[in-house]
């Protein structure tokens, strides 16, 4: 739609309105021309937009407002009574010399390490599995289905099973590692202490690699087979084909996939909460559970909201920088 068309449509729309209100004689009201021509897509989007506002934007704004108030247990019954505290909650959260800020910073580092490991390994496993599944062989359909099971299982049920397997005395993991293979001299703890970080990473990878697998598999279907045929006639081996054809063709999918995996993993709440309960061990103290503890468990919702807003800002920044760089690289390669 160009700017010059717009003025001529305004009177039409007005006329349509008159018609609608005047001609209500059992006939269906006429849809105004303007809406019929250009507005229909927007009309269809409207319910989604309203729901998006209600479900995401409004609570988010409430969260941001909360972060500027001293919303403690004394005020949760009537939020509007909570005093405005300006930037106090933020100051406390980013004062890294004081215990609360220090704990938040520690939790931030833990989350970064966790996200880096979980995303890269999930992506790697998913991509390798998808590439291997391209070949036609017996049982491919079954394997594909099996691979998708972790993605289809309800998160809570799956993670609680992991929690049982990680138990020190009766868990499957120690039974295999210690009792059967004898790799460790004594049973290890997985749900407390330093190992809890690895337990968390393992469960997160198990949970998210099927998604990477699914996405990459779909993208692989779109690469024309002729490319591979031509390459093999030119004498390219499998590894070269993957590097020169597969990976570049996956580029646009990977761009979104890695970003989405990053955001999901960084914000993962279910995994630590179900594995460790209300207070995660220090080694596995992810931001999401840390914020939960700072608000729900200690009943200081203002402080928790401030930390959430900081997290939001950080993720927006990462997303913007990521998109800026990946799109710029793309522009030059497109030329």
């Amino acid at each position: 739609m160009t700017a010059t068309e717009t003025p001529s449509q305004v009177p039409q729309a007005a006329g349509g309105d008159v018609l609608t209100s005047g001609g209500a004689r059992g006939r269906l009201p006429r849809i105004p021309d303007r809406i019929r021509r250009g507005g229909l897509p927007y009309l269809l989007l409207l319910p989604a937009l309203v729901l998006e506002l209600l479900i995401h934007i409004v609570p988010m704004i409430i969260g941001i407002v909360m972060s500027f108030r001293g919303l403690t247990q004394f005020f949760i019954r009537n939020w509007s009574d909570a005093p405005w505290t300006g930037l106090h909650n933020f100051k406390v959260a980013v004062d890294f010399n004081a215990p609360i800020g220090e704990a938040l910073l520690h939790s931030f580092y833990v989350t970064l390490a966790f996200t880096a490991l979980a995303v890269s390994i999930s992506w790697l496993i998913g991509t390798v599995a998808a590439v291997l599944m391209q070949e036609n062989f017996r049982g491919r359909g079954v394997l594909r289905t099996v691979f998708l099971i972790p993605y289809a299982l309800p998160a809570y049920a799956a993670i609680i099973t992991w929690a049982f397997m990680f138990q020190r005395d009766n868990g499957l993991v120690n039974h295999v590692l210690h009792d059967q293979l004898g790799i460790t001299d004594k049973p290890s703890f997985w749900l407390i202490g330093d190992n809890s970080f690895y337990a968390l990473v393992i469960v997160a990878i198990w949970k998210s690699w099927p998604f990477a697998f699914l996405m990459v598999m779909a993208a692989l279907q779109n690469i024309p087979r002729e490319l591979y045929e031509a390459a093999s006639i030119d004498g390219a081996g499998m590894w070269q084909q993957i590097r020169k054809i597969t990976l570049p063709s996956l580029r646009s999918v990977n761009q979104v996939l890695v970003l989405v995996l990053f955001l999901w993993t960084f914000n993962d709440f279910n995994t630590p909460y179900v594995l460790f309960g209300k207070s995660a061990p220090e080694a596995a103290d992810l931001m999401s559970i840390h914020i939960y503890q700072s608000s729900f468990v200690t009943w200081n919702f203002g402080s928790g909201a401030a930390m959430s807003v900081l997290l939001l800002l950080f993720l927006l920044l990462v997303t913007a920088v990521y998109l800026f760089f990946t799109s710029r690289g793309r522009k030059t390669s497109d030329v």
Partner: protein
Amino acid sequence: MRRIRAAAAVVIAVSTLAGATACGGGSDTSGGGSNDSPKTLTYWASNQGPNIAADKKILTPELKKFEKQTGIKVKLEVVPWADLLNRILAATSSGQGPDVLNIGNTWSASLQATGALLPWDKANFDAIGGRDRFVDAAVGSAGAAGKDPSAVPLYSLSYALYYNKKMFADAGIAKPPATWDELVADGQKISKNGTSGKWGLGAEGGNLSENIHHAFVLGKQHGADFFDGSGKPTFTSPGAVAAVKQYVDFMAKDKIIAPGNAEYAQNQSLSDFSKGKTAMVLWQAAATTFASQGMKPEDWGAAPVPVESGTPGQGKGTNSMVAGINMAVFKNTRNTKGALNFVKFMTSDDEQKILNKSYGAIPPVKAAQQDPAFSAPDLKVLKDTLSTSAAPLPQVASESQFETTVGTAIKELWADAAAGRAVTTESVKAKLTKAQQQMTQ
């Protein structure tokens, strides 16, 4: 196209965060209750029996009885402990909650501070037969001193030392320990430094509340409180540090607790006890759980929790917290009269006898306590403890934060002990210092 994708990514980024930031809006918070719907009540019961189904089976006939008497239908929901406090907080901030609910008595002052619960002033107490019907200590654990209680005591509990009679006999131990030295010595006879495959004592290292209850009692025995008179935290006093260290040392130094207990949080220590893996547990009213796990009443005994002097009493002789469940009325109820009536019914002498017998608890109602059933050996221990040597946890508004911060500190110390790292006065003090710093915002 590119711009749309960028926008889409931003939307995803924003929306994945919405969950972290948002938690419902509170609006209808004006005034107190009303009597708009006099024929129904919603009741959130805490999980007291071995499981939720058992609770429903115990409570449903009683609720039917109430319906028959008054025509009020009570909708029952049994809420597991792990969810109860969150559910109450959500109900408080949204104003949409049950009419009547159970709360752990240690939350009384914290919840009182939110203003969500109907205060029990004289008029309300009179409506259920008067404050004098209840044991004083139980009412004392229903809110901060000097304020109208936020709830009414429903079931009273205290800690006791439960021991396995056969394991004691096998190890040549004649009677349950009365002092901590005796307990450690007896425990070592059974665990033999961890070589026997059996253990002296059980603990729930991952359960923050359990950690707090024991630290509090041991603190009292060391002459320390975790809060001063003005409600300020004093977690790092020498007595408090010694108390926490003494508790964790049962694993770290005395080696009478199995290292695996450090991660227990689902009452695994009770199943270990029932299976004959550990000889002793410190627990509140464990009889029903033991029975449900196949133990016969003659298999185990109950004794008062040890104290330094050997004779429980007040002050340094404290050997239990005043544990219990209180019954509260949600201030936003739409049936205040019915709710008071229901509390009156549940705290009546007859119902108190029936309910407390079912749960192995002690009635906080004086008249009901006289029933001979509550003089059975194990219940007599609980009753005597409650009347002579139990003290309520600090009734301060920040009690729930105390449970979280100090409970977590002790959980981390258990993890150290289990991993074989040294637990020293310094390391305990460092953890408690961190916990205390998190309290002052």
